[in-house]
């Protein structure tokens, strides 16, 4: 059913796939593991510091009141002061940034291969993500 003009012939797999399988996959996997592990460590430290600061006060979140740590940049600034809640939020932000970093890394890989179609696709995904992270503040 395949005509000979089709790259890859009978197997639909091999349209540009050899470079793809293995190399990019293993790098993406490493990136995801590193991002999650780093976040987990920061979450643990943040939680421990939070409890060490004050483990006896009551926590009640039955009414919604916007959290004080509400932007990516301020979270990094506040975490430097080594407050428990700021460190926990830093861990949370690192978790959110892990898939964003994955998309960014995929973009670099497509750029390196001159795969323009997927460069465009990835730039759109990355643009929407960055809008969600940074640009959506004026919506509220």
């Amino acid at each position, binding site marked *: *059913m395949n005509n000979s003009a089709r790259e890859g012939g009978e*197997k*639909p*797999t091999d*349209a540009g*796939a050899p470079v*793809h*399988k293995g190399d990019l*996959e*293993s790098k*993406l*996997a490493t990136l*995801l593991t590193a*991002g999650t592990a780093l*976040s*987990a460590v920061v*979450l643990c430290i*943040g*939680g421990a510091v*939070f*409890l060490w600061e004050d*483990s006896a*006060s*009551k*926590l*009640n*979140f*039955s*009414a*919604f*009141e*916007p*959290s*004080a*740590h*509400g*932007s*990516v940049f301020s979270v990094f600034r506040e975490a430097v002061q080594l407050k428990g*809640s*700021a460190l*926990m939020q830093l861990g*949370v932000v690192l*978790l959110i940034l*892990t*898939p*964003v970093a*994955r*998309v960014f890394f*995929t973009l670099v890989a497509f750029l390196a291969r001159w795969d323009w*179609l*997927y460069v465009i*696709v990835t730039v759109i*995904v990355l643009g*929407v*993500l960055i*809008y*969600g*992270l940074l640009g*959506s503040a004026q919506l*509220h």
Partner: protein
Amino acid sequence: MTALPFILLLVAASLGAGFLGALTGLGGGVVIVPILVLLFGVDLRFAVGASLVAVIATSSGAAAAYVREGYTNIRVGILLEVATVTGAIVGAIVAAMVSKNAIASIFVVALFWSAYSTLRPPKPLPPDTEPDAISRKFRLDSSYPTKEGMVAYRVHHVPAGGVIMFFAGLLSALVGIGSGIVKVFAMDRMMRLPFKVSTTTSNFMIGVTAAASAGVYLQRGQIQPAIAAPVALGALIGSLAGARVLPHIQTKALRYVFAGVVVFAGIELLRRVLSNSL
């Protein structure tokens, strides 16, 4: 509750949610919101924010292994992510405009659908070997490892899959779940990817989808670190542990237990919506 038991119990409950979520293939997100709202008395808006962060954690943790093993179709994932992240941003915006009762009602529907699909897994479809123009243009056809070696497959109905993916992203953002069921439905049923490729590619996309809406929620102050941090940590550890024991145990009975919990949570949430006590 004081801080110490609150944080420790949150870690423990999320650990259980992540563990069962990984074993049943449903993901932990679907039970984290009910746990937070019904057991810990957390406001729904904080619960959705925390659940999204947990969904990102479990997705990234599991995706690493699947991607390395070569199941995930990265091109299909990236292409459909255009639709899911757009849906997620729209969902996060809509979430601020609708009432808590509306969000909880949508959640109840998602819970019942989850329970149903856990108990009635869809029958495998025969592979569709017809070539598809859009799939060819985007070079989506690929192959995946099986016991008999690498098996090639073709991808179909990309636009229809994209439309469903938009709604998967919307649902994910509105109620704080990964929407894996909707994503797998689009890829397995509609686009005719092999089931294993559908589930792993769905997992690959879930983290990016949830990151889009989590960004909006972060800026809106819906991500409270004292809730989100222990929940994400517990769910991550639980899901990694679940993935490790999965090959060695029978999950059929577990599916019934999990579906029972999900239905119970759905009924209880519905009761609170109807009595206006959320």
